[in-house]
């Protein structure tokens, strides 16, 4: 608890730098990453991130120490060069983009590790901590670097505001953008450069290995929650910054652990949750929908069975008998537990009313029961009239469909078949 209070009260001034840094870095990467995601260029982020390592090392060798600006410039240059190489390989050979990304990514990363080892063995006095660039050490962010990260965020924000329409147009339909005379190549170059910039800003806090997650994952998670691009951008930023700060906190309280993995772990949990619980398309929604359908089918089937019970005794006109579950089981096979549950629900919903020795239909229940039977039989007649189907099979075909036919479709069926009331013929 004490560490948590220390963390949020900025007792350690470094904590504030970390939080500010995370806000800038994660916002930059989530914003520009959304467009990379929409352009199906997510993997490019991976190539860029891994290609930053040799740049960092070259920057270090050039400067002789760990001044961020040199490392950053080196990283930006090799990161950018890697995207150029990927495009070059794709355009000039039969190699497809996924393979080209794999080739470039591994070559650059290998080169980076070679350089890193060289630096460690070459007796540079202040190379300690260069390892941190692999998996990130957010605690190492200092004041000057915050200015750099804020500047990058500003550049990306301004670019998105100014080029919003162009970015959308090219992400959705680049050929159309070109057809209205937009300088598509130039704007794509700008988007790629901004992606490199955002990725490079994260080398210190998150490390080159996992930085690509911050390009792809926030957009992917945000997509589950909205159909609007503007909202997707905001949600992506919120997810990413939240993960950044939580990840930095965990890494702060466990001093030996790098920041990158924690941030990405938190982000992954958010993505997984989004995938599971988000509206309409998530797993949870699908599960709930399936459950709801099951209950609906059970209830409607019970009401239908009550109708059938009466019909067999020539009582379809009044439907007034008091019934027990056993009576229903004489008409149709049920799982008794399910049947009891369904009857209870129907009583609660006012379709059935409990009597001394069982239950009977309410007025609403009668209407509902007749409706289901009617839909079932209308659909049977429709299938027999419009398609080639054996009369033996038409009943099972109508069993599920009766539950989803809407009142509009009911009217259309009625009109098409010219049937009023409940058809007496059952199949």
């Amino acid at each position: 608890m004490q560490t948590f209070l220390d963390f949020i009260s900025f007792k350690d001034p470094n904590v504030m730098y970390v939080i500010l840094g995370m806000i800038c870095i994660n916002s930059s990467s989530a914003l520009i990453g959304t467009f990379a995601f929409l352009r199906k260029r997510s993997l490019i982020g991976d190539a860029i991130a891994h290609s930053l390592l040799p740049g960092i090392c070259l920057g270090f060798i050039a400067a002789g120490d760990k001044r961020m600006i040199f490392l950053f410039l080196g990283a930006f240059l090799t990161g950018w060069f890697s995207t150029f190489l990927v495009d070059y390989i794709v355009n000039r050979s039969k190699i497809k983009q996924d393979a080209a990304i794999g080739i470039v990514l591994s070559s650059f990363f290998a080169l980076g590790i070679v350089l890193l080892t060289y630096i460690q063995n070459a007796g540079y006095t202040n190379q300690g901590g260069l390892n941190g660039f692999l998996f990130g050490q957010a605690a190492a962010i200092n004041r000057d670097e915050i200015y750099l990260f804020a500047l990058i965020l500003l550049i990306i924000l301004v670019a998105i505001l100014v080029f919003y329409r162009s970015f959308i147009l090219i992400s959705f339909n680049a050929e159309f953008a070109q057809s209205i005379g937009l300088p598509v190549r130039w704007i794509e170059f700008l988007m790629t450069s901004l992606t490199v910039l955002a990725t490079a800003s994260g080398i210190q806090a998150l490390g080159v290995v996992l930085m690509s997650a911050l390009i792809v994952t926030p957009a992917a998670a945000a997509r589950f929650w909205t159909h609007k691009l503007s909202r997707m951008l905001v949600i992506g930023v919120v997810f990413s910054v939240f993960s950044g700060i939580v990840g930095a906190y965990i890494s702060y309280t466990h001093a030996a652990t790098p920041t990158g993995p924690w941030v990405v772990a938190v982000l992954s949990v958010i993505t997984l949750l989004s995938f599971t619980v988000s509206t309409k398309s998530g797993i949870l929604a699908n599960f709930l929908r399936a459950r709801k359908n099951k209950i609906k089918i059970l209830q409607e089937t019970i009401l239908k069975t009550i109708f059938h019970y009466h019909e067999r005794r020539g009582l379809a006109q009044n439907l007034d008998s008091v019934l027990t579950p056993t009576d229903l089981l004489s008409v149709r096979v049920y799982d008794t537990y399910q049947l009891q549950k369904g009857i209870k629900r129907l009583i609660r919903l006012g379709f059935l009313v409990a009597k001394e020795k069982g239950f009977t239909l309410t007025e609403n229940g009668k209407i509902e029961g007749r409706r289901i039977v009617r839909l079932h039989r209308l659909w049977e007649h429709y299938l027999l009239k419009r398609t080639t189907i054996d009369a033996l099979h038409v009943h099972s075909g109508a069993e599920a469909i009766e539950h989803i036919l809407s009142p509009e479709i009911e009217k259309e069926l009625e009109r098409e078949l010219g049937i009023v009331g409940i058809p007496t013929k059952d199949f």
Partner: protein
Amino acid sequence: MREACAIEVHNLTTTYGGAPVLWDIDFELPAGHIIGIIGPNGSGKTTLLKTIMGLLPASSGYVKIFDKDLEQIRHKISYVPQRESVDWDFPASVFDIVMMGRYRKNNLFKRTNKTDLEIVLQSIEKVGLTKYKDRQIAQLSGGQQQRVFIARALAQKADIYLMDEPFVGVDAATEHSILKLLKEMRDLGKTVLIIHHDLQTVSDYFDYLVLLNTRLIAKGTPQEVLTEENLTNAYGGQLTLLAKVANLIKVNQFPIREKDVDL
């Protein structure tokens, strides 16, 4: 009197990986007609449209539109790509996509004005999607998505429309409503160039036809083009020699014409 010429394609050759996809195509298309481009699969129909629109570079020859270069008259041309060429899961509504039809090179930084808004709503109305204006495009049927593309083209207020297979994946009712719209546009003097694959409907839909198979097989009115000889030439596998020569060119990376030959 000679009819005004909307599109002049002069000795156009476009290559892909060294092999000619379009080879010495040369024709002039009259303005104010619905013109069909037909030909078998892989005959270069889409390539032709893209080369006219400047999306693919021509290796030789040129295209003139109303006697002008493309750059001078780009704002008068509307291009409708194949529906399958984009990802319809993109986070945008019908309105957002049709609004793209109002984007111009020089207004991309401006806010939408009232005229734009009116034109967009009108275009959506014309294709009968007003009810779905705010719907996410992923939730539309194939036919509705195609109509979104048509509405975007209408919003461009162009004089020439280049459409790549607008009737693919569209139900019969939608096909007829699109065709009705195109005829209205033609009656307003617009030129519509359409890639079409269904030979059954060709003579009903088009006033003028271009029959392609890498080379220009025939052009003219449907009666002139749809002769048995032309169709056999285009579809009947009679052009194997042409394909063999194209392949030779590709394998040897051979130039398609000698440098100084006068066009």
